[in-house]
């Protein structure tokens, strides 16, 4: 009997310990990407009202704003925010490569540059990472460069996107796909989801969205399936 109590005690202690990364994962992964008003205004100046943009334009604008925010935060020494936004931008670039074939090379270039900036930071050279990002941003002066039509855009159709992580245009993780179909998709926004990668404890707000608003990201379960919901909302 005494052994059983010891086992239960140790099990409880072990589970409480394991709750630490689970909780930190929720805090970290559910964090919104905060785009400063100055960056949004700059984008509106060059593109016009954001809600009037086509889907490829929205994705490109979201990516640009995330990268500019990351660079500013890195320059300003706000490392945590910079890395969070840089990782988010990388997720958008990856979806862009996958879902926007007419602009694939552009997104691949961005992804390579973001990877380079990350590597520089991860090898102790954050100043070089700022330069890498600044050079890329400087090449974005022409707003028309991002324009693309809907031709060839891959939408997240099919049941294999059920359980995929939902991103917004900044790359923030805002929820999970509850049910995927060919026309409509049910997504759960917010809540406590994906704990340890498989537990959905509190589903959050369920929203039905037309698949025409959802770009196909990776469908690979091991690498992490995701879709990009074309929304500016950055709250999880």
């Amino acid at each position, binding site marked *: 009997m005494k052994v059983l109590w010891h086992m239960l005690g140790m099990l409880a202690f072990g589970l409480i310990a*394991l709750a*630490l990364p689970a909780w930190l994962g929720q805090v970290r992964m559910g964090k919104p990407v905060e785009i400063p008003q100055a960056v949004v205004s700059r984008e509106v100046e060059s593109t016009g009202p954001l809600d009037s943009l086509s889907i490829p334009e929205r994705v490109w604008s979201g990516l640009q704003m995330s990268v500019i925010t990351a660079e500013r935060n890195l320059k300003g020494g706000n490392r945590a925010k910079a890395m969070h936004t840089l*990782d988010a931008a990388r997720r958008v670039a990856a979806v862009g490569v996958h879902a926007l074939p007419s602009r694939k090379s552009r997104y691949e270039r961005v992804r390579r540059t973001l990877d380079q900036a990350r590597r520089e930071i*991860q*090898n102790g050279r954050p100043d070089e990472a700022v330069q890498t990002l600044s050079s890329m941003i400087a090449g974005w002066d022409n707003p028309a460069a991002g324009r693309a039509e809907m031709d060839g855009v891959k939408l997240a159709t099919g049941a294999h996107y059920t359980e995929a992580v939902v991103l917004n245009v900044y790359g923030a993780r805002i929820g999970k796909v509850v049910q995927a179909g060919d026309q409509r998709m049910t997504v759960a926004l917010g809540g406590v989801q994906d704990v340890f990668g498989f537990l959905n404890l509190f589903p959050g707000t369920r929203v039905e969205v037309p698949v025409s608003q959802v770009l196909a990201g990776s469908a690979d379960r091991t*690498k992490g399936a995701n879709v990009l919901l074309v929304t500016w909302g950055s709250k999880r």
Partner: protein
Amino acid sequence: MEWSWLAFLADPWLVSVWYAFGAVAAIWVIYDSYFVNVHVNAALKWAWPIIVLFFSIIGFVLYVRTCRPPRIGRISDKGEQAKVHYEYVSTHFRKVIGSAIHGVGGNGLGIMTAMVIARLYDFAFWNEFWFEYAVGFAFGWFIFQYKSMRNMTHSALMALWMGGRAEFFSMMTVMAGMGSVMVYVTPSVVGEQPDPTTFAFWGFGALGLMLGFVLTYPMNSWLVRIGWKHGMA
């Protein structure tokens, strides 16, 4: 909480010196445990060099202060040497350190191996976490715990059972530490899941194992108290 002060863990000089010292010290520990401090138990002879490699100066100090009686090399009589070693490592603190060392040594080797593979294949975070858990658990159980428990029983199956139950509880706390660093601290400082070709990977990997060691200490203390693990003795 702001973690950017940990950016030094991606510094090439610091990480290189950290691991270079760790490698040299690990070689010295292998020599010492086989030729001088020979009564270190078999599983710990494997685990200490791994710990010293990753924990560097901290691992070296732990070895010298908890597993190596002072002036052990000057005692020529084998029986006397065994007695001195046994008495030295028999305090609860040192027993638990030994228990945690061979737990984290096995788990750590498995976790770091799995982490390299997962990063090369671009695993999503939680997939990587569970993959590391499984590989770390397997390394810890089938190599280190089994080897250690084999000294306690004549039956291989019984050793496997005893090793498995100790590993089950110990691994939860090791992975709690490692996972916390992986999921929160590393992304806050250098971004999510750095590649094994970067200094940050190795710097933060060592930090994760050290936090795992700290968190598994109380669990190992419990396991030693109820006789499920025997630590250094």
